[in-house]
């Protein structure tokens, strides 16, 4: 909008000029509306800079490597959670599915178990993860139950299945098949150690980012979360899309369990208790809307990294880890409030 138009003609143009004028805040709102991952990205950079200034040992290649490794498990899990939240759903059972499939992979490959070859045990675990997701999806679509309730139920079911199946016993490192530990392998890049698990996570982000952005299925996932009625009227089979989303998410949770075994070097039925809430935290801080239809997986990766950076920074600075929960808690509320505000933007 130029200043000259108001000078040449009064009245109507003046009103148009007024409507067209945007304050700095409105302009920010419009930009964030177009690029929702910008705000988490700035938070990540800000947090990194602050900790680098406060804690001298924070900004080292070695520590950055550690941060990526600490992000791998929740970061992978949160990819599936992002898919589900994009459809305006939620999955409280994701951590339980992850731990259950990790026990399936570990135990079926044990000599005292089914003694399956490691690769087959891995495939079986992936299959179980996909099936668990399928069960969630079918319960949600066939019985028309809210995802929160269904996954709260399956959270309990998968947790108890894990405990019963594992009989309370951890599968230790030397009992694990080599394939299952493969994602714990580190590659040293001049002080920066990246694990194969981190690489798998990054690859999975790239694949999902592509699928959501460039395929019809991705468009349908957004449409179903955005306005299910409009999607249905456009001829999209909403239930089918939802079932596929929960199934794919279940598969991703199973991949996360493989990353988990690699990271911990063991399979324990008692691990990953807060993983479900941590994954939701990463998604929400990453700028994906809990109301569906808005968000990018890259935001989730940034969200998961923010959590790890805060954790690592606090511990290197010698501060109480209780501050981490405080900081993350504030971030969640700020992120959701920002999402509500950004939604009201008009171009």
């Amino acid at each position: 909008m130029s200043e000259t138009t108001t000078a040449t003609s009064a009245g109507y143009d003046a009103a148009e000029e007024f409507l067209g004028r945007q304050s700095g805040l409105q302009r920010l709102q419009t930009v964030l509306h177009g690029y929702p991952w910008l705000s988490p990205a700035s938070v990540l950079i800000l947090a990194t800079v602050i900790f680098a200034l406060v804690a001298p040992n924070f900004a080292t290649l070695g520590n950055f490597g550690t941060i990526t490794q600490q992000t791998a498990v929740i970061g992978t899990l949160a990819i599936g959670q992002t898919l589900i939240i994009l459809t305006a759903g939620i999955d409280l059972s994701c951590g339980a599915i992850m731990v259950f499939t990790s026990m399936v992979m570990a135990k079926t490959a044990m000599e005292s178990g089914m003694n399956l070859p490691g690769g087959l045990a891995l495939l079986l675990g992936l299959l179980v993860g996909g099936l668990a997701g399928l069960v969630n999806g079918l319960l949600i679509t066939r019985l028309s139950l809210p995802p929160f309730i269904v996954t709260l139920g399956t959270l309990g079911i998968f947790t108890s299945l894990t405990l019963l199946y594992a009989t309370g016993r951890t599968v230790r490192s030397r009992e694990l098949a080599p394939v299952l530990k493969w994602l714990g392998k580190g590659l040293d890049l001049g002080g920066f150690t990246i694990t194969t698990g981190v690489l798998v996570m990054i690859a999975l982000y790239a694949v999902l980012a592509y699928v959501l952005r460039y395929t019809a299925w991705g468009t349908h996932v957004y449409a179903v979360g955005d306005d299910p009625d409009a999607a249905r009227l456009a001829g999209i089979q909403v239930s089918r899309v939802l079932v596929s989303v929960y199934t794919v998410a279940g598969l991703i949770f199973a991949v996360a369990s493989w990353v988990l075994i690699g990271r911990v070097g063991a399979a324990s039925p008692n691990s990953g208790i807060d993983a479900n809430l941590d994954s939701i935290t990463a998604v929400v801080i990453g700028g994906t809307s809990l109301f569906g239809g808005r968000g990018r997986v890259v935001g989730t990766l940034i969200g998961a990294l923010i959590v790890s950076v805060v954790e690592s920074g606090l511990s290197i600075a010698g501060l109480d880890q209780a501050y981490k929960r405080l900081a993350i808690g504030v971030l969640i509320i700020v992120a959701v409030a920002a999402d509500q505000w950004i939604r009201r933007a008009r171009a």
Partner: protein
Amino acid sequence: MSTPTDTSSALSRLTPVLEGIGLVKTYGRVVALDGADFALYPGEVLAVIGDNGAGKSSMIKAMSGAEIPDQGTVRMDGQEVNFTRPSEARAAGIETVYQSLAVAPALDIASNMFLGREERKPGLLGSVFRMLDGSGMRNKAKEQMTSLGIGTLQNMGQAVETLSGGQRQAVSVARAAAFGHKVIILDEPTAALGVRESAQVLQLIKNLRDKGMPVILISHNMPQVFEVADRIHVQRLGRRGAVITPQSVSITDVVAIMTGALQVPIEEQTLGPVRVPATQEGPIKSGLEEASAG
């Protein structure tokens, strides 16, 4: 513009594009359709009006596959059809625009236009990597908008939620026009819109008619009906009460026909076509409906 008198022979040869004969639909003990007849001729705008509960939507749903009639026949171009799902009617070329602004707000204009019918890139990118042809769809969406005279929408990558109600409805109409090659049904398209936005949608309906596309307009708004309709189907008590033209009857009389206060003798009704269809060519069949990724 041709008048009915010098073209009556051409008109008499026309077969209805969409025809319903003796349609019956009941919901439990409630009779929605009680032997309703209906005919839409090529190239015309047919308004369907009637009191609440007269069976307007039941009849339209029976024609568009949203409901299966208990009895009666539906014909397209003289051939009997039995739609059991809206997708079947859609595949046959019948598109519906709903009053509820059925668009996904966070998606952009092009994605909304191709929602459920996305097109993939040619070659390996499309077949193996399932990559959508984003720029191609945006270009086609743009062409469609231009051909319908929707000049206010320039950027097809704009999110629909940033548009006004009239512009959103324009996206719906453009989508229907892009894929409906036989009939476009508009169910109260202006009910959620203001005066200026309604005028835009009415103009779109006229543009569609000028391209030769038959349109069914369900509406409560008499001035709008009188502005665009060639013929007016008055639905009453689950049947066709009368079919008239805006020229033959006044708005007051139409209301009287709707309530049953006025009867129109069959010889004064306009059951046949009154408009010679414009030749259908060009952008309507612009190939948008051709290859779409399922």
